[in-house]
């Protein structure tokens, strides 16, 4: 118990003395702010002066937009002077401070305005290409800054200029939240808009935005071929008319056009090409049998063409077939085309071989010099009775009960 009292008295003594020390250090020290300036311009040197009595070892806490510091004073007779370092006085925004006295903290703030002279215009332009027609637009965002990289004060006027075809435009916008922006709409013609801005007599460099044609409108197609025979050899070329958007701009090069071909049997083929100067071309080999094609072209999801019809006449009217003595060599030809000329090499000939009415094999060959030859191998087709069917250029010839 006595120990406890001893402790209590010791602790209270300690507390008492510390309070006394505390008091002597601070009750004598008084600080009064002498500077009354609460506004400043970035780049100007700022100092805070305090009249003081007593302790001169005080620190000043200061904080601006980017961070906080502690400052030591310069002691001058009865004044404490805190000179703000440039990192603080150069940046716009609120600088708040607090004098670190233990008794009566003094605090305040200085609003640092950006300079009124401009050093740079930062421009951000996008998107870099827009569509003709007046609804699509690009946006220019301008951040004018002073030479200490502070954004200029709000309500600074910025002139945004742009030129398109024969016209030049200029409009004034004011900065807000440190920037100014303007939407620049396209017109009905394709081309290139040149954009620049001006702020406080400082001009930006030139920016450009491409105005691309709008989406294509419906178009027409035509075909070109050197003859109308189904010879399986010549090529038919399909061609679009000049594809334009609804503002009469020729569509961009590279617009992808797909031609869909439907034949008499309903089978579909497709071929495609991209536009150059508004016209797309695509090619397809002639059929090798008589046929009729319906052709329609699409720029998928955007536009399509009319339908055209092409007829292909039969080029080969008949062909001769010769079996060898043992029937194992089948020779076709010479196959003759529309002028009785031998067909060009590469016409497909198909031989189907049946046993007891069941298809057992198909052989495919191309003609060479108007001829095609099949050899029915002994190992593959053992001795027996077979049916043989030959087909080329849409003509079918059947030979029943061939003894091999």
């Amino acid at each position, binding site marked *: 118990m006595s120990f*406890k009292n001893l402790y209590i008295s010791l602790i209270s003594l300690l507390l008492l003395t510390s309070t006394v020390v505390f008091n002597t250090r601070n009750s004598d020290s008084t600080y009064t702010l002498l500077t009354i300036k609460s506004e400043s311009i970035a780049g100007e040197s700022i100092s805070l002066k305090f009249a003081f009595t007593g302790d001169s070892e005080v*620190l000043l*806490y200061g*904080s*601006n*937009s*980017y*961070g*906080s*510091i*502690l400052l*030591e004073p310069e002691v001058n007779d009865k004044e404490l002077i805190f000179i703000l*370092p*440039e*990192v603080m006085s150069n*940046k*716009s*925004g*609120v600088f*708040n401070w*607090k004098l*670190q006295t233990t008794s009566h903290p003094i*605090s305040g*703030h200085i609003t640092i305005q950006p300079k009124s002279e401009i050093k740079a215009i930062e421009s*951000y*332009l*996008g*998107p*870099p290409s827009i569509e003709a027609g007046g609804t699509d*637009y*690009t*946006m220019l*965002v301008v*951040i004018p800054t002073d030479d200490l*990289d*502070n*954004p200029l004060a709000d309500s600074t006027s910025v002139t945004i200029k742009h030129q398109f075809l024969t016209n030049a435009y200029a409009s004034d916008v004011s900065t807000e*939240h*440190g*920037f100014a*922006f303007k*939407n620049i709409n396209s017109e009905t013609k394709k081309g290139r808009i040149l954009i620049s801005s001006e702020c406080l007599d400082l001009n930006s460099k030139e920016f450009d935005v491409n105005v691309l044609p709008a989406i294509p409108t419906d178009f027409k197609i035509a075909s070109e071929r050197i003859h109308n025979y189904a010879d399986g050899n010549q090529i038919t070329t399909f061609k679009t008319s000049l594809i334009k958007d609804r503002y009469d701009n020729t569509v961009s090069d590279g617009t992808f056009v797909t031609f869909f071909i439907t034949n008499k049997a309903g089978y579909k083929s497709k071929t495609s090409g991209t536009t150059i100067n508004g016209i797309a071309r695509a090619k397809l080999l002639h059929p090798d049998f008589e046929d009729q094609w319906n052709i329609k072209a699409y720029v998928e999801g955007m536009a399509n063409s009319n339908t055209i019809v092409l007829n292909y006449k039969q080029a080969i009217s008949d062909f001769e077939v010769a079996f060898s003595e043992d029937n194992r060599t089948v020779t076709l030809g010479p196959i003759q085309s529309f002028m009785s000329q031998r067909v060009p090499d590469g016409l497909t000939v198909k031989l189907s071989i049946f046993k007891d009415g069941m298809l057992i094999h198909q052989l495919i060959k191309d003609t060479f010099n108007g001829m095609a030859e099949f050899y029915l191998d002994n190992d593959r087709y053992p001795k027996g009775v077979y049916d043989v069917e030959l087909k080329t250029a849409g003509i079918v010839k059947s030979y029943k009960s061939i003894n091999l």
Partner: protein
Amino acid sequence: MSKINKNILRGALLVSYVLIIALVIYAFGAIYSYLNTGADRSKMLHTEVKQIDQYLPEITWQPLTNEGRPMDAQTLTAIENDYLDGWFVRHVAYKTNTTIGIGDYYTESARQNLFNIIALNSENKTTVIGTTLEHHPTLEFFSEDGQLAVLTDNDVVEYKRLFKDNQLITEITEKSSYKITLLLEDGFWRVRHMVKIKSEPYTAQVTQPVSTTTINGINYYPQATPWAMFGDHFDADIIASDFELIQSTGLNSIRLFVPYEDFGKSDIDQNKLDQLITILDLAESANLKVMVTLFDFYGDYSVLNWTLTQRHAKTIIQALKDHKALAVWDIKNEPNLDFESRGTSLVTAWLAHMIDFVKAQDPNHAVTIGWSNAESATLLKDKLDLVSFHYYEDLEALDATFETLKSNITDKPIVITEYGMSSYHGFWNPFGNSEEGQAEYHKTIQSIFSEHDIQFMSWTLYDFGKIPKEVVGRLPWRQNAQKHFGFIDENGIRKPSFLFIANKKPSAQQH
């Protein structure tokens, strides 16, 4: 003689042969396993991306009414993440006076401003340890090409500790507003301009004190799982029957502990939270009120960690604040024990902030701190609704201690939220108290409580079989003492002290 030598020689040869073979096999094995490292297929694709919460200040976006391009949720989240990361790297940079990470979140010209201040601070040996606790950004503008965003971040609550030559100079809490221009560069939203437009000292709104009903209660852990009641060992049936027992003794409340790390820190384990809610449900049906002690076993306090503790508290409070059984939030158990290791001012600052935060989240429940002694109990008294402390000292001094405290705290209720006596006497403490001594202690303290009208919560219902080392360390004399604070012993037999668990005399008979 030579025969023996020969045998020795043979033996040695044999042993060295075996040894060499073993070494060769080991070497092959080592080479083989080295060549196989990194061959884990699951790692090849880097499918697992672990994101660790580092910085989670409260951020509330104002409704989107921005000029320019309409904002989408995904971009807004990207902006939010990078913007907050920008603050985080800035705090780290000022804390360490290094420039790591700044380049990712500030454009080339903007980062110069930070570098200048870092250079100045490291020259002056100043360090700033700070964090931001709240952000209220408004999106002002989003450019058509999606590369530039301007926002006004209103009322950013910043907390800073400024050091010079490693001496704490001051603590600052301020509320500032910023105009921020962000540019999308290299996939990062980087700060291009940052202008502070307003700054004022910040003090949390003073709220009306919340009153509580008289607390006559007990600290609760189930007998089998002290300090580990959540998770796999959670047993609602045991807890329910314990609550019934507590209620039958005439006690009206219990004190629970929510371990910070075990609950998942900032990312709360929903399963454990559900268990906590279940406990409150059980307490409600047993007609008991609950004092929830947050941040058990939390000991970091570092300023950059504050936002994570905030998120932890927010999740728990939002889940429990409307629960009928909830009575009091105890911010932390015995934080004054961390004063020495973590610094009084840091711990106090965290507590002060956390009181404000908890009150802002739940203004309807009382807030207290369970100080480990009466001397600390006056700290932060103006912020608390209820002053609570723990008393394990001599009973003779209790009157005086309580009266002194009462004269210092006139307008708030004072509760002793832990007291008790171990009935351990054995090998490690042959002169310890007997169970009768413990009963005498409880009898005496109850009479003091009645006399001075003191609200109380005792430690604790049960004797425990095993005490985790985090609680009192590994020393057996501490462990054993801690095991025997209960009113009911290890075998479930009520000790004599059970008669004095509350003011009212409970039945001494077993149920």
